[in-house]
């Protein structure tokens, strides 16, 4: 992989405080580069979701600087926000599906928001639903789907528009290991196509499945860099040493090649 020549995200001494409470994030500084696969780890309450909210532009920081896609995201005007958000795919921890829309319409939502013609929506959305194993639940509303099925719809929605950066908050928390691996393969495929992937997870086994991934770790709202992910140039592999995960089983580099074939990312929505 060629070294990236421009950062996709840059945080500089970012702090985030909700109301008048103590800071949820303190002095966060890091840089993300295009085409990399990042894991964000940390204990519950460490600030992972807060950091992701800043990454997918749902929240403005209390202090510090954030640059995204080469632009100052703090002072970004309201009119320009939608354009930036369309370059992001987000898997929310609580899925956040639109309750009165079918699985198909939920997955199609980013394409429709982006103004893709209706005739160009059906095939990729159906392929994506088929790939996440929900072809037969195409017309089901979220309330009738299981937690795992809702999560797969949320993931399909996040990747359907081939975003520049995918941000996923515990994306495999509600699915069985087989489906988790399959979804991870989807993220990897997207990553190979150039998408920067940031996955927040507790699951060390999941991290091992992506050998070229980089790990960022949050501890009580502060960032640590166990794998050198935040250095430039970043390390290419996920070393077990110095990560706090030394007892993990070795990375199975072939794990990603098992499954049902390549995920359906060949379409090119507008």
């Amino acid at each position: 992989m060629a070294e990236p020549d421009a950062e996709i995200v840059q945080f500089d001494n970012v702090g985030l405080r909700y109301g008048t409470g103590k800071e949820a994030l303190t002095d966060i500084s890091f840089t993300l580069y295009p085409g990399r696969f990042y894991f964000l780890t940390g204990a519950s309450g460490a600030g992972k979701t807060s950091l992701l909210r800043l990454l997918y532009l749902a929240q403005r920081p209390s202090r510090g600087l954030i640059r995204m896609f080469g632009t100052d995201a703090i002072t970004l005007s309201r009119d320009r926000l939608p354009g930036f958000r369309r370059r992001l795919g987000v898997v929310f921890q609580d899925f956040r599906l639109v309750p009165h829309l079918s699985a198909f319409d939920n997955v199609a939502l980013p394409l429709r928001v982006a103004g893709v013609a209706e005739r160009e929506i059906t095939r990729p959305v159906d392929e994506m639903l088929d790939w996440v194993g929900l072809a037969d639940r195409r017309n089901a509303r979220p309330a009738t789907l299981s937690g795992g099925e809702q999560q797969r719809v949320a993931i399909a929605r996040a990747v359907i528009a081939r975003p520049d950066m995918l941000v996923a908050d515990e994306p495999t928390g509600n699915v069985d290991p087989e489906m988790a691996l399959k979804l991870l393969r989807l993220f990897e495929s997207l990553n190979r196509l150039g998408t920067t992937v940031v996955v927040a997870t507790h699951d060390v086994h999941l991290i091992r499945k992506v050998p070229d991934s980089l790990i960022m770790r949050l501890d009580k709202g502060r960032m640590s860099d166990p794998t050198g992910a935040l250095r430039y140039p970043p390390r290419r592999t996920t070393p077990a040493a110095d990560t706090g995960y030394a007892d993990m089983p070795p990375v199975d580099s072939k794990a990603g090649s098992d499954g049902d074939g390549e995920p359906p990312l060949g379409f090119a929505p507008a």
Partner: protein
Amino acid sequence: MNAAALFGGSRKAEPGLLPDPRLGNPMPWVIAIVIALTVIAAGSGLALRNAATSANATLNGGVIVQIVTAAPASRNQQADAALAALTRTPGVIEAHRVAQDQLEGLLEPWLGTRPGDTIDDLPIPALIDVRMADAATPDRIKALRATLAAVAPAAQIDAQAAWLTPVFRALATLQWLAAGLIALLALATIAAVVLAARNTLVNHRETIAIVHLLGGTDSQIARVFQRAAGIEAGIGGIIGLIAGVAAIVVLAQQFSALGSGMATGAALGWGDWLVIALIPLGGVGLSVLTARLTVLSALRRMV
């Protein structure tokens, strides 16, 4: 059939983010009531305008000449002389003496005509109905009075319009009242749509937040609300128009049964019906605009 299908709403720009409006919602019925009241107020206002215009056109050049003298011979002689003089007067396009039996007919309800009644013995004035080419202004009345002074000294001259001035004032006031009612109903429509839009915003706040995070623009979201408001106002407008027109037709039948010339003059023309038919469209436009402004204002306060 749901309302979206009825109105052929496109799902491309507004991807069904809100549940389709249905008759089960209160808003179409609120709009229907407001539109029905607006139609009735507008119909009444237009009818009053027509009545005033018609009466004014009829009475504007009208003059009544009364020969008020107790002696029948002198009364008849002065009436004939006055009629002859009026016929020759420039600006008078028509003059005719009101027949004696017509005069007695006017008094009949009060004085009766049964045997023994004394109506024939009453010194009823002779009346001459005069129609002038132009309005019977005080100057023209004064000139007529000078013309008749020599040939009919017992003549009294009155402009017909002068008698009905209080009626015209009342009609004008009622027209303003109708216009005021329409303005108030428009404000009620705006208030109802603002409340409905805010309520929908609260109910679907999460959906709106999701669409924002997926890159949806304020305009896209506002279009969803506009579409819903437009469909609901359209449904309510049609129901209200039907109810309002039915009420106007019933009222028109009641007034036409009076047989009054003023009531006949109040009849609505094609132009009036066109104005009434456009009221629901105005309601839809007002609702759509109100929904858009309300939603955009609320969205600007969101992240």
